[in-house]
């Protein structure tokens, strides 16, 4: 190989070697365990022991099918043993008069039962995967009968695990440790009767019949394991203390500091530990040679808890959880509590996490996550949360709710070793702690009473007030920014009411009645609507409390004052020199009297000379009352002496003479009149 290529090869290998080293460093250990790995004071973590989510019904049944795939139901496989055909005695060890024979298991079972006076060993042999039991009547198929309402062992184990918050894998391993039921391809009925070894004291009297039966055994054992965890002070072994644990049946043992509740529970159930001889003769986990046993001569060999540990590691992986001592000390709680809240409320979600280890632990990332209407709405999160030794911390985050909808708040956890683990980490040892809360976020503030204008009928130059009622149901005051009743005149011009800035709606559901007042100068139909400013104009905020809330109206601004009755002379055909009275009536629809200044019926004689009727100064039209417009009538007399055509017209003085003011209410109003004397 050319030298340069060799160098390149070396250089190319460097990143691969580096990466491989990193990956290997990060992988959890997967090597087989040996007896030296058995820790008497820490057999299994509480978190693993109580994780009842590890297997489904189907998982359990699949597992049973896999472990003993072929069942020797008819007992056709061979069995070798010592047998005396005369006495019928059968033994595994040689005895006087015995021959070493090989028969089928079925024949052996018959001979066994006959010799021992039992009824446990005859066919059919029902393997656990094929076992069915009606959990109510406890009728089963061990005698080959069809069982009405029979359920699978997967269902029995699963629901016991669920009910007592115990890992179903713990129950499976216990079935194996006590009776070998998981792997037995020709189980006898006594294995089912005492399937979990529940109520089977090690006193030589055998198992008691009160708890005989598969379902009863599984349920009772699961309940008892939970009882050990719940009431540790009432039993023989306790976590966090030195305990004396013996080697069965010897009067010897060692002092063991039991580190956790699950390990104590195992000893409460099986009160012995494997002696050093058992551990040194323990095969590596996963060994095809099984867990192993000591050679003859060790009278202190006991295998129960060793086998539990061995089968669990072989079948289901480590008995230790990552950060197994990081546990939930409380469920998720919300403050304020309740199933509903309001926009603008501050919601605090909290839970406690404890560390049962005697050293501090980086629990990973802990926080409070949430979704609002299906969108992420996390409260907060912190990485590398340290939980002190034997300590408890509170994880608490608050968030101000800004959007109405359905809010789901949950404990949130991430550990680099196993990723997101909201569903089970920190571990809930006792079960039943809430990890999630759901609540409805109601909208707030809300317009409870829509846009109202007052007075109902208003005219130009008349103060008009717009009313709006808003309620804030949240627990704190809210500054909604700027709010205005926008207005557009008949020509589309902006004639908004004065804007209100920093509008604060007080908390607690008290209604805020907001008002805006202004006058308008142009008569006609106006458009009024609610408008909110918080960076941009928004006509939808605050939301309406109901569909009945009016957010926009088109309303007329009336002209005012108006002449409702034009020039009228009385008498209408006066003679020369006769007094004649001119009248003009003016209407005021406003809520205040209007002083329009001076009003006169002006007159011009045939020669064009001024023959005005007398001026009425401070011509004041009273306000409307009770919905009835106020009116004032100009009424002045005078006489005329010349013959000819006279012309009269309405004239208003307010600094200058104006013949167009006040306007006429309609075209029928006579603003000019001609009279011939």
């Amino acid at each position, binding site marked *: 190989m050319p030298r*340069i290529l060799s*160098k390149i090869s070396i*250089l*190319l290998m460097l*990143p691969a070697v580096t*990466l491989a080293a*990193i990956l290997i460093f990060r992988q959890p250990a997967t090597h087989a365990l040996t007896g030296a790995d058995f820790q008497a004071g820490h057999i299994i973590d509480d978190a693993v022991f109580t994780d009842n*989510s590890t*297997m489904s019904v189907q*998982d359990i049944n699949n597992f049973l099918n896999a*472990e*003993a795939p072929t069942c020797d139901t008819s007992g056709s496989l061979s069995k070798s043993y010592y047998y005396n055909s005369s006495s019928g005695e*059968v*033994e595994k060890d040689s005895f006087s008069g015995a021959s070493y024979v090989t028969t089928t298991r079925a024949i052996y079972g018959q001979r066994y039962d006959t010799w*021992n006076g039992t009824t446990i*060993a005859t066919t059919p042999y029902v393997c656990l995967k094929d076992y069915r039991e009606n959990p109510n009547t406890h009728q089963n198929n061990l005698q080959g009968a069809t069982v009405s309402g029979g359920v699978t062992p997967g269902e029995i184990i699963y629901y016991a695990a669920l009910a007592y918050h115990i890992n179903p894998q713990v129950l499976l391993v216990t079935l194996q*440790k006590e009776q070998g039921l998981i792997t037995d391809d020709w189980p006898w009925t006594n*294995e089912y009767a005492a399937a979990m070894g529940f*109520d*089977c*004291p*090690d*006193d*030589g009297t*055998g*198992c*008691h019949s009160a708890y005989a039966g598969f379902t009863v055994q599984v349920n009772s054992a699961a309940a008892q394991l939970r009882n050990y965890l719940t009431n540790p*002070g009432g*039993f*023989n*072994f*306790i976590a966090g*203390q030195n305990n*004396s644990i*013996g080697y*069965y*049946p010897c*009067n*010897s043992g060692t002092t063991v500091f039991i580190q956790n509740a699950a390990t104590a529970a195992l000893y*409460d*159930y099986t009160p012995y530990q494997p002696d050093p001889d058992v551990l040194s003769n323990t095969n590596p986990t996963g060994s095809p040679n*099984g867990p192993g046993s000591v050679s003859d001569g060790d009278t202190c*060999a*006991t*295998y*129960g808890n060793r086998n539990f540990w061995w089968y669990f590691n*072989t*079948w*289901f992986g480590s008995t*230790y959880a*990552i950060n197994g001592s990081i546990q939930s000390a409380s469920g998720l709680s919300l403050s304020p509590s309740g199933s509903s809240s309001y926009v603008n409320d501050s919601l605090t979600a909290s839970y406690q996490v404890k560390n049962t280890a005697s050293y501090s632990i980086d629990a990973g*990332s802990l926080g409070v996550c949430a979704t609002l209407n299906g969108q992420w709405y996390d409260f*907060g999160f912190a990485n590398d949360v340290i939980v002190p030794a034997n300590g408890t911390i509170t994880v608490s985050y608050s968030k101000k709710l800004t959007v109405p909808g359905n809010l789901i708040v949950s404990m949130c956890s*991430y550990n680099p070793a*196993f990723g*997101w*683990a*909201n*569903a*089970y980490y920190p571990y809930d040892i006792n079960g039943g702690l809430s990890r999630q809360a759901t609540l409805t976020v109601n909208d707030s503030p809300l317009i409870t009473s829509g846009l109202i204008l007052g007075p109902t009928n208003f005219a130009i130059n008349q103060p008009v007030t717009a009313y709006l009622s808003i309620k804030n149901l949240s627990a704190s005051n809210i500054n909604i920014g700027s709010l205005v009743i926008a207005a557009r005149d008949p020509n589309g011009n902006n004639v908004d009411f004065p804007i209100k800035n920093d509008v604060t709606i007080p908390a607690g559901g008290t209604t805020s009645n907001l008002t805006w007042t202004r006058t308008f100068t142009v008569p006609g139909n106006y458009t009024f609507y609610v408008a909110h400013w918080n960076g941009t104009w928004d006509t939808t905020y605050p939301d309406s409390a109901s569909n009945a809330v009016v957010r926009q109206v088109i309303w007329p601004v009336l002209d005012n004052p108006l002449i409702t009755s034009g020039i009228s002379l009385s008498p209408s055909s006066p003679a020369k020199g006769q007094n004649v009275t001119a009248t003009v009536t003016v209407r005021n629809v406003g809520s205040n009297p209007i002083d329009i200044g001076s009003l006169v019926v002006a007159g011009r004689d045939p020669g064009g000379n001024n023959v005005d009727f007398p001026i009425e100064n401070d011509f004041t039209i009273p306000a409307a009352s009770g919905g009835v417009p106020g009116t004032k009538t100009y009424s002045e007399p005078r006489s005329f002496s010349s013959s000819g055509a006279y012309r009269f017209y309405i004239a208003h003085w307010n600094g200058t003479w104006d013949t167009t003011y006040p306007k006429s209410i309609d075209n029928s109003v006579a603003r000019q009149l001609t009279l011939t004397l």
Partner: protein
Amino acid sequence: MAKKSKKFRITKKTALISGAMLVIIIGGLVYWHHHSNSNKGIVSPPQASTKSPTSKNNYSAAPAADNNANNDRKGSSSPSSTLENYQPPPDTGSFSVSITRANTDSTDLQVATLINGATSGSCTLNVYQAGQTTISQSEDVVLQVNSYVCPVFNVPLSQFPNHGQWNVSVTVTSNSKTVSSNWAKNPVSLN
């Protein structure tokens, strides 16, 4: 005599390639570190997992050796009730008494006892200190699921005239035979 190794000469080309590779390695490590930590923060949506990190179901047929103990038991005319203990129980008429724990909680001295070989009788707890009156409690032997025990004794700490070291002993009388606890840790320190 070993062949003298050739000195590795660093040429410009070699240095260039080495530099490039170094950049790739460092870049790769930086990317890896960033990538491996980027999902720790709130930026990544949480995905709830339903599987324990320890879950590793081994769906394979059990080796025949797993049935050795069971098959062995089936050959015995007096099979053990479980597979936990391959040894026979103690001889009839003899039994042992073991104090499994003697500890204090906030209010009591707790003493738990395991009896091996006796299924009935009475238990007497004696807690004593030189020069002091012995504190005693009695209970009947009971079956506690899989073991015969003396129910856990709870002696209020208020009954002790002083703390310090106290000796603990449990005596069981069954079928006219009396046996005292043997190898428990003694004395117990009351704090």
